[in-house]
């Protein structure tokens, strides 16, 4: 463990936070702030999912379920049981963590496409529960009246205050992930990605490490979930279905596997893209699909890889001139 790395990480995350906090002052219109908030929420989940997919090499096609169950948990706790918001949020994240802990043991034994199927099936089962447990979740038409976030007497009523909060949360999550990957655990995770047998032979407890990273990423999804519920004040099962799980995976891959910054970029890119494509009217869906396909074809290592290659090329041409 080299403390110098953590200094670099902290500096990077600090710069990132400063950049995020500057964004609202550069936006021409407050409307773009809502996109940024949703982008931050997706980025928190994507960074967590990347720990699981990019570093540990395990896929999950059911992460929307953890996002959703935390959102519903805090929604129910703060309205039906009138619990304080921080308690509801803690319960939400705890629920995601606990469910992930239970599900991890039998699921993570599976490999490749079987693991994909198991997590997919889990996600579908959970989203059916959101739909069918009408008495608790409000069913398909959604859950109304979740209180807007207020913590320690401060009301996050304006979009700007909520965005600033999200920026801080995202920067912390990024910092945590960067540090984790530089740690012993991070190296163990990467080792088991390359070869489980080789890692095991070096004394890495495969099952425990996989479970740890699965639970961590589910917890981050849960964190995003509770923040989403108290931002929108309304949640519906359609937001937590298979499509969103797939979208999260696309964010991670599009951003660049095993790159924390890539996941952040992928999340913002995919959140903002449909809004940017509104100008295309009816054919926006085709443009969206084409951009997705072309990006992966021409940037096989994702936005992160593409950007760093671009930077290198610029540096080289700068040096030549």
């Amino acid at each position: 463990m080299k403390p110098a790395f953590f200094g670099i990480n902290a500096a990077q995350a600090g710069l990132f936070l400063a950049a995020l906090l500057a964004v609202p002052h550069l936006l021409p219109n407050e409307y773009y702030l809502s996109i940024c908030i949703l982008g931050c929420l997706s980025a928190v989940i994507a960074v967590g999912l990347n720990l699981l997919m990019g570093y540990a090499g395990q896929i999950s096609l059911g992460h929307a379920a953890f996002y959703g169950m935390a959102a519903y948990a805090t929604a129910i706790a703060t309205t039906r049981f009138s619990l304080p918001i921080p308690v509801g949020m803690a319960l939400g994240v705890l629920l995601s963590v606990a469910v992930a802990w239970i599900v991890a043991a039998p699921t993570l034994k599976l490999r490749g496409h079987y693991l994909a199927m198991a997590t997919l099936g889990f996600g579908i089962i959970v989203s059916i529960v959101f739909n069918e447990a009408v008495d608790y979740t409000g069913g398909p038409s959604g859950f109304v009246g979740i209180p807007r976030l207020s913590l320690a007497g401060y009301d996050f009523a304006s979009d700007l205050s909520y965005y600033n909060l999200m920026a801080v949360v995202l920067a912390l999550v990024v910092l945590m992930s960067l540090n984790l990957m530089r740690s012993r655990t991070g190296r163990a995770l990467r080792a088991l990605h390359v070869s489980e047998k080789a890692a095991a032979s070096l004394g890495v407890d495969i099952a425990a490490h996989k479970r740890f990273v699965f639970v961590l990423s589910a917890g981050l999804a849960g964190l995003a979930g509770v923040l989403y519920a108290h931002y929108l004040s309304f949640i519906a099962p359609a937001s937590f279905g298979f499509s969103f799980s797939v979208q999260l995976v696309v964010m991670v891959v599009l951003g660049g596997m095993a790159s924390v910054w890539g996941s952040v970029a992928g999340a913002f890119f995919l959140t903002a893209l449909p809004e940017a494509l509104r100008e295309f009217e009816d054919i926006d869906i085709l443009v969206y699909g084409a951009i997705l396909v072309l990006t992966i074809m021409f940037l096989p290592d994702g936005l992160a890889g593409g950007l760093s290659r671009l930077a290198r090329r610029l540096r080289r041409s700068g040096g030549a001139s």
Partner: protein
Amino acid sequence: MLSGAPQYLVSGLTQGAAYGLIGLGFTMIFNTTGIINFAQGEFVMLGGMLAVWFAGSGLPLVAAVLCACAATAVVGALMERLTIRPLAGAPAINAVIITIGVSILLRGGAMLAFGKDTVVLPAFSGVTPIMALGAAIQPQSLWVLAVTLALLAALKLFFTATLQGKAMLACACQKKAASLVGISVARMALLSFGISGLIGATAGAILAPITMTAYDVGMMLGLKGFAACILGGLGNPFGAAAGGLVLGVLESFGAGYVASGYKDAFAFIVLLLLLFVKPSGLFGKAGVERV
């Protein structure tokens, strides 16, 4: 008087045969390329929508269905040629994301070309149900089952009696060895996408008279097909067909005897439990991993 069980069984088998065909498509592509094709469900959608479109433009029903299947096979082959082959060497997950992108394109294209309405294809031979063993059977159900069996038999023949089929099997077993003995793995991938498109479209076209179809039916059917081929054991075409039948019957009995709202959950819970006990599906071989 209708009794429950036989009716649930008939409905389940009809649905299951379609899931099996879709699963079969997944398996074909997986075997030669190692990727899961998320656009498989869109092939099914195209089969149904194109059949309706061809029938609407004046072709007789049979010709319309055949044209739809052929056109979708071409779409499958084009997809491989244009989006999958250029990726050679990239990680499999990239190819999977590409298939997601292609599925968005196909869905969007179908929406713009055919509109957003649900459409229906006439049944191949009437709608007067046949009563047997206390169950009402639609003639179209028999068509679905018969076509599924015929396709399975044809595939069996293809794999055992033709050079192309044997080459494809060889690819599935060991890609490198196959290419060493002179098999073009790239051509096999192209062929498998084509056949996959054909099988998917067939499922879509024979199912359309019963279930109707629309530009957005692909995703759900694709999921069920994926579940079918995992249930049967990935890589085994006949396992996928069997997995589909099991899945269909589970759903139908789930709706009948458990709660209809939870019928999909019921099927998936059984699937998960099975995977926990048997991590490579019903008929899958446990993989041996080299260190």
